Each structure stands twice: as structure tokens, then as C-alpha cells.
């Protein structure tokens, strides 16, 4: 378990909903609902549940295994988990060290996760391992930009933001490909910074 990352997100849990609970979620709601509507009837892994802000956008009746590195975050998510019309089983877990067998899941979903995973390609390789061959990866992520001046700015901002939260300049689409996934679709929600990514194992 990466204790440094765990401690960082345990600390962030207290005020996470204050910063991210209203404006960002309202703004991203249409894109997130569209992405999570792809949740099927098979076994679903949701990576980095956080305080459960995404749960209201899940379609009802699904059986989801949700993991997060922070027990503080999962504790905060409890009321939203209880309110969900379906089953969410939570576990405190590091994506780099998931104990699931190979090919356990049919689908994996992430939401603003790979801005914070310390070794993103290794984390994505683990996701590919626990997905059945041909299984689906669906991500809602923010990344760096390839355009000036956004690229320069986000590189500079990352030096500050990574101390208490996420990186702002990740190359997540490239990382998905580097981890061995077959990229199927990328939809840009805001600039080339906020996006949904779909890929197959």
C-alpha cells in the first residue's frame, strides 16, 4: 500500500465535497451520466470511489465493486452508497496491488482517478489484468493539454497541486495505450483537458 498517497487522500477527505461536490459535479453531470449509462449487467469495478460523488449518476440495479486507497474517503461515501438502488461493495485498496484474479471483471470505470495514481501505466496494466479479455475500460478524466498556453500553465500548476491533490498534466490517453489497451473512443468535454476515454483490454 502506498502510504504517502493514502495519507494525502485521507487528509483531503474532510473538505473534498466542499471543493468538488457542487460546481464540478453539476458541470460534469451530463458527460458522467452518459459514460456511466454504459454500465452493463456483468461484474463492474469502479476505481477510486472517493466520497461517492459519482454514485447518483450510476444507473440503478448494478452490482459494483468499488475501491479507493483512502478509508477516509470511503467513510464519507457511506451515505451515498446506502442510498444507491443497487449493490456497491467497497474495499480499501491500492490499484497497483489489487488482489483480484486475472479476468475478474467485465467492465472497469474510473472518474478523475488517473490524475492521482502515482504510477499510471502500472495502474492501468493492473486494470487490464483484472479485466476479462475484451473487457471494457471507461474513464472520465482530466489530463494535460497539448496546446499553448494551457500546456505550459498546467505543467506549472502541477508543481503546486500535486502536494495536496491531483496532477494537472497527465497524458492519460497515451498511458491507456502504453498499458496495452485498444483505444476505442475519446470525447472531449472541455478543451482537450476534460475527456471521456473508452478502451478494450
Amino acid at each position, binding site marked *: 500500500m502506498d502510504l504517502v498517497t493514502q495519507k494525502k487522500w485521507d487528509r483531503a477527505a474532510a473538505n473534498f465535497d*466542499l*471543493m*468538488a461536490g*457542487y*460546481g*464540478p459535479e*453539476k*458541470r*460534469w453531470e451530463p458527460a458522467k451520466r452518459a459514460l456511466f449509462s454504459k454500465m452493463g449487467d456483468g461484474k463492474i469495478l469502479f476505481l477510486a470511489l472517493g466520497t461517492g460523488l459519482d454514485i447518483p449518476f450510476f444507473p440503478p440495479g448494478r452490482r459494483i465493486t468499488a475501491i479507493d486507497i483512502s478509508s477516509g474517503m470511503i467513510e464519507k461515501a457511506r451515505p451515498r452508497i446506502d442510498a444507491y438502488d443497487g449493490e456497491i461493495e467497497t474495499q480499501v485498496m491500492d490499484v497497483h496491488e489489487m488482489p483480484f484474479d486475472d479476468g475478474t471483471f467485465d467492465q472497469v470505470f474510473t472518474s478523475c482517478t488517473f490524475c492521482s495514481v502515482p504510477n499510471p501505466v502500472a495502474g492501468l496494466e493492473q486494470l487490464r489484468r483484472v479485466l476479462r479479455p475484451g473487457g471494457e475500460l471507461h474513464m472520465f478524466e*482530466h489530463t494535460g*493539454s497539448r*496546446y499553448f*498556453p*494551457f500546456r505550459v*500553465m*498546467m505543467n*506549472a*500548476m502541477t508543481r*503546486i497541486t500535486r502536494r495536496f491533490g491531483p496532477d494537472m498534466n497527465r497524458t492519460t*490517453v497515451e498511458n491507456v495505450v502504453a498499458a496495452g489497451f485498444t*483505444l*476505442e*473512443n*475519446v*470525447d*472531449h468535454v*472541455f*478543451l*482537450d*483537458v*476534460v475527456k471521456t476515454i473508452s478502451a478494450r483490454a
Partner: protein
Amino acid sequence: METRPYFVFGDLLANVLDGVFVGVVTSLVFGPGWNMIVAMFVGMALGMVLSMIVALPMQVGFGAMEIMVPVMTTGMVAGMVVSMAAAMAPADLALAHAARLGFYSGLGTLVCCYAANVWIQGRASLWTS
């Protein structure tokens, strides 16, 4: 492109407020004694740092990256414009003039970000092939 009135209003408010704030503070830092090029680069950096103060509370109500990225860009532009104007002026800039420059920097930057958003989304399909 964002069309929901609440978020368009939020974008406008955040960028204009940030432009005015950065413009006023920058005008207090720079003056006729500064080399224009040095003032420009220091002003851009200062504008970005100051913008974080505006971006954080605005994010709570109006969105994360959709606020942070344009607001930081506004800070950079307003910092550049006002610091150069202050360095070139024969006397210290009037605060009202600096605020006005910041206001227009915020407005212009937001329009450019909206245009960039439309342009980038039009190109998105090319990147997945």
C-alpha cells in the same frame, strides 16, 4: 461549448473578477522604473499565482478545470498587459485604468477559451484513429 446560463455566467464572473483583481494588484507592483520585457514575464507569473486565489472559491460554485484553466490564462494575460502598460507609462497607472485593462483581458481570454474549446472538440475524432 458551454451553453447553460448558470455556467456561462460563472465563467464570465470568474474571468472578469480575476482580470480586475490581477490588473489592480499588478499595477501596484510595476511602474515606470521597470524594464518592459522583465515586467512582462514577472507580470505573467504573478498573474498566474494571483489567479489561484480567485479560481479556488469560484470552482466551488461553477466547475473545476472549466474555471481554473481560463482563469489562470486570464491571470497570465492580465498580468502581462498591465505590467507592460505600467512599465511604459510616464507615471504610475491609475487603478481604474488597470482595472479596465484587467476587465477586458478577462473578457477577451474567456472568448478565446470558448473559441478554442469549439475548435478542439471539432478535431477530437482525429486523435482516436
